[in-house]
């Protein structure tokens, strides 16, 4: 049941503006669901299906580089 519900929910769209990302890692470190990873000194959206849209990455990104929809 729970699985069905989460499958029915539209997955979050996490966008990263790589040319603005400075690779501070704040979004990666404080994501409660471990959705993000570092790759080549910048953030990479590794597991968008786990995102709960808590918006903490967007709130704390100092570079206006990550958005969650």
């Amino acid at each position, binding site marked *: 049941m729970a699985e069905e519900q989460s499958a029915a929910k539209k997955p979050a769209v996490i966008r990263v503006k790589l040319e*603005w990302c*400075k690779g*501070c*890692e*704040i979004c990666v470190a*404080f994501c409660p669901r471990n959705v993000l990873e570092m790759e080549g000194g910048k953030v990479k959206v590794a597991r968008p299906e786990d995102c709960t849209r808590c918006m903490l990455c*967007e709130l704390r*990104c*100092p*570079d206006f580089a990550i958005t969650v929809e």
Partner: protein
Amino acid sequence: MFDYLRYIRERNFPHIWCSGCGDGIVLKALIRAVDKLGISRDEMVMVSGIGCSSRTPGYVDINTLHTTHGRAIPFATGVKLANPKLHVIVVTGDGDATAIGGNHYIHAARRNIDLTVLLYNNYIYGMTGGQVSPTTPRGKRASTAPFGNQEPAFNISDLAEAAGASFVARGDVYHAQKLEKLIVKAVQKKGFSVVEILSPCPTAYGRRNRMAHPVKMMEWLRDQTVPVAKWERLSPEEREGKVRTGIIVDVDKVEYTETNDKLIESLKADK
């Protein structure tokens, strides 16, 4: 998703702040606060001095004024007196507002003129190379204190309270949503309002104090901040090494532009 692009000067991005600098997080909280306040951008002026924090107005698409070192508050006072209907927001830092601009800071608080001062406190002079500022804690290292700072630090919120500010709050960039709410309250308050904002500087402060990684600095902010209500219940020993965050002062006092307007009206009536 919040649409920040409506409020920023996109051509100036990516901004010049270092990787992991908290100033970008403050800028975002400020933009959300401006949006929430619903004040027309034509009725708002942002004034800054010199320093990393003072680059903020360059990134927002509202009326802005970038002035000389330490003098953001005097310029803002002039703007406010010329047109008291404007909401004037001063963006400044610990070096700008409490060292070279220290006198302006306390006297504007004493006067209780209706300005909102967002004072980014990163505990150091970031832009000029990590020199000791009035808020560098004792024992912490800076480029001008390679063996640790010997001086006691200013508590800039307590300083504003003692000087007579009608609203004083402290926020930090780890708690970004709370910070946004504090900025909203500070702008709404009639009178001199200060929000001291703890913002990490990994480059100049962190590297010298074993917190080179931006995440380390954010954890440090998370661990040292205590909400005001909880702070009241702590013993002096428990308060050691911690700072309280939230609204510290919120009182109603006679405001300067109001008394000034009344004086002008009475002098006109005498003619």
